[in-house]
């Protein structure tokens, strides 16, 4: 029973920490889109897109080499 004197304050502390982490995530915009990320994880990005634009299409090869 004595362990409760540590465990309960500890659980309150953890709850506060989780609350802070949640606040940080929301304020940082991580939860602005609740719909797309869930599905996006399933889409494989392994195969690099072969860029082969149709005549007139403005899709040029990605030479800026930005991450993603």
């Amino acid at each position, binding site marked *: 029973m004595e362990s409760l*004197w540590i465990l*309960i304050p500890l659980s309150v502390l953890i709850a506060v920490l989780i609350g802070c982490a949640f606040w940080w995530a*929301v304020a940082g915009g991580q939860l*602005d889109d609740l719909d797309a990320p869930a599905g996006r994880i399933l889409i494989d990005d392994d195969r690099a897109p072969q860029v082969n634009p149709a005549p007139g299409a*403005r899709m040029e090869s*990605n030479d800026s080499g*930005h991450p993603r």
Partner: protein
Amino acid sequence: MTANSGRLFHHAMPFVNTDVGSEASLICYHCGLPVASDTDFAVEIEQQRQRMCCVGCESVAQTIINAGLVDFYRHRTDFSEKVDLAALPRISPPGSLVVLEPTGSAPAFVELQLYLTGLRCAACAWLAERALEAISGVDRVAVNLTTRSARVRVDSNRVSASTIIDALARVGLGAEPVEHEARLLVRRNERRTQLLEFGVAALCMMQVMMLVVPIYLADPDEISYDARQLMAWAAWLLTLPVLLFSARPIFLSAWRTAMRRTRHAYLGMDVPVALALVLTFAASTVALITQSGQHYFDAISMFVFLLLGARWIESALRRRTAENIDRLSNARPLECVILRHYPVNEEGDTIRADQLAVDDVVSIRPGDIVPADAVIVRGESEIDEALMTGESRPVARRVGDPLFGGTVNTSSPLVVRVTATGEQTLLARLGKMVETSLMYRPQFHGIADHVARWLVPATLLASAAAAALWWQLDQSRAVEIAIVVLVVTCPCAFALAAPTALASALGRLTREGLLVTRGHLVETLASATDVVFDKTGTLTTGEMVVTSMHSEAAISRDVLQIAVALERGTAHPVARAITAHAQQHLAELGAASQIPVATSLISQAGAGVEAAVDGRTYRLGTPAFAVPRTMLAPPALPRSGEFETEVILCSVDNAQPVVYVCFRLADPIRSDAKRCVARLQASGLRVHMLSGDASGVVHATAEALGIRRENVRATQTPSQKQDYVKQLCAAGDRVVAVGDGVNDAPMLATATGSIGLAEGSTLTRVAADAVLEATRERMLTALVNAFALARRTARVIRQNLLWAFAYNLIAVPLAFAGKVTPLMAAIGMAASSLVVVLNASRLTRAPTETTMMNGK
């Protein structure tokens, strides 16, 4: 409704585009709509030849495949939006884009905020990001599916906004620059705050439960007194953020309701809720400090959590509608060409449309939107005034005639003098009319509000009575009993009865395609007695379509090619319909690309066009215009079905004029309109139809739909429509109005409940309590389903209230008698709330398509 599917040499095409069932076996791989059996559009995707319904879908699918983005088709969870053929050639309309000027050689990064249309699932968001990242000069792309917007960081030296919009159009997505970035920010912050409040309530609720449940379940001597106190204080500590932070919106709106500063009938329950929260917390804290009696921290946090959950769903929908309204309205062009020195010279300057002043002279090209109210000083043309009048056919306007801002110039260039701008335009005044009507509309009171009115005094009275009673019997128990009575009658179940049912109904309605902006609409739909429809664009598709072609001889490809050559250049809806129809038949004959060139083109407003093709002169237009007098009588044509316009192609060379072909056009009735009207009538609603169109067409349409003649009015102005609805309301009917044009907006704002179409004007969307967003083929089916669902929702709300009432009827006397232990009170409260929530959640699964409204 696309150009229709039919044979070339037929004499009567079906007027109504029905029978999806017969073609359902073959659907477009891209958009999921039926593929006409006599077309041949296809793209090879992963070694499979996939059929497409139109050139638009075909070219978009081909672009996606060519760019190596085949994953899109693998992972999408919904069909894509049908590609609007008309949108493809004018992908970047001049004057509506921010073109970024190159400033130097160093990369100058600029952030663009875009609204996207056509986003349906996560794969669409991925596709948009991939399409943009492939452009060199694009630095970062973030697509947000929730707000359906994108933030793009680009090097303005290399990429212009039009390139971005172009690239998105090529993969079938629409994009518009965000005009009100500040509003976007406000909504984003509001959303974050709400999410935080809800999240904190959820977290604390779970923790409090974990601390409190053992106390309930354990035997009295199983947990030591000290440990029990510790757990209670921990629960108290964790309830604080729920009450002080999460429940803030409840307290605020309760305060506002108490001060009578709000018009939201839906929030009427907030006062008893806030009162219960404060009193329960105070009593529990006193009990904790004095170490006597029971505390109810678990009840407080769970109650707040459930309420915020319902509220979150509701406000997410409201935000989405607000976004829809913010999206650029097509009623006002961003730019226009001003002629500063007219009539001395005609050098045009492009300026922002909102900088126009009265008496400025403006040049309006064919296809342009009129930027302000004006009067014509030179030229004559046909103006599409559908926005104002609902009339789908353009009207001829010549020198001296007034033009209204927001209407579209369809055929030839005009020079106009501005007569009114900004707030003074007819469009703005109609907007004002809507606003005023909304303000004076009788407020709707839902069942929950009626309950709320007597719930507060009743609860307080009951508590006071209990305290007074026990003061006589046993003074030491008086306070405890009073609190138990208060907690037992706690408005939990009452307060949750309506919001939970409405929240799950709103979620369900959104999936069905009806986006509700004002919460009372669900209850209004359930109790409606009359439905008033607009005709053009609501019961009909609002687009001209060729319903049949007639000719004495067989129609050769030459004839069709000449028709296309004559009509190709004009934006007139009739011309567009004929071009599309003829092009489709030519495509089947494999001759779509060999269109001859028409020279010396003369177009006459309200009549037609005359032009020379291969040395011969042709006229295409109304019979009076196209058939020359020398010809004694036009050939007799079979009369069939209902049509609105007849257009004849005739050669007018000297000696022998020949009538080649007669096109008949109509604004076709939506495929599901007839069933919709029949179902609404079957469920006991009176269906009315009001239209600005001419009497003959309106009554023929009404007859085809089975609407009774006395409920139909033709040639109605916006204010006449409003009066009609006002009269119905005055007679005590509950009227739901459905419409799409600006001319419907006053009527919508007057009706008890109103529904606008997503395709309709911005003003309509503002005036309406809900917006129909279903795909065009299911628009009216979604409406019927909404009615059915609304009735079911009203039933669930009544059940919930009945349950809450029954629960109180049993619990309150027991509490009075002192027979309710704190544990029983807590469990009873949780259970009663849970029953209400579960009952409400039935709405999300209820079938709508089959078991229709008969089972009222």
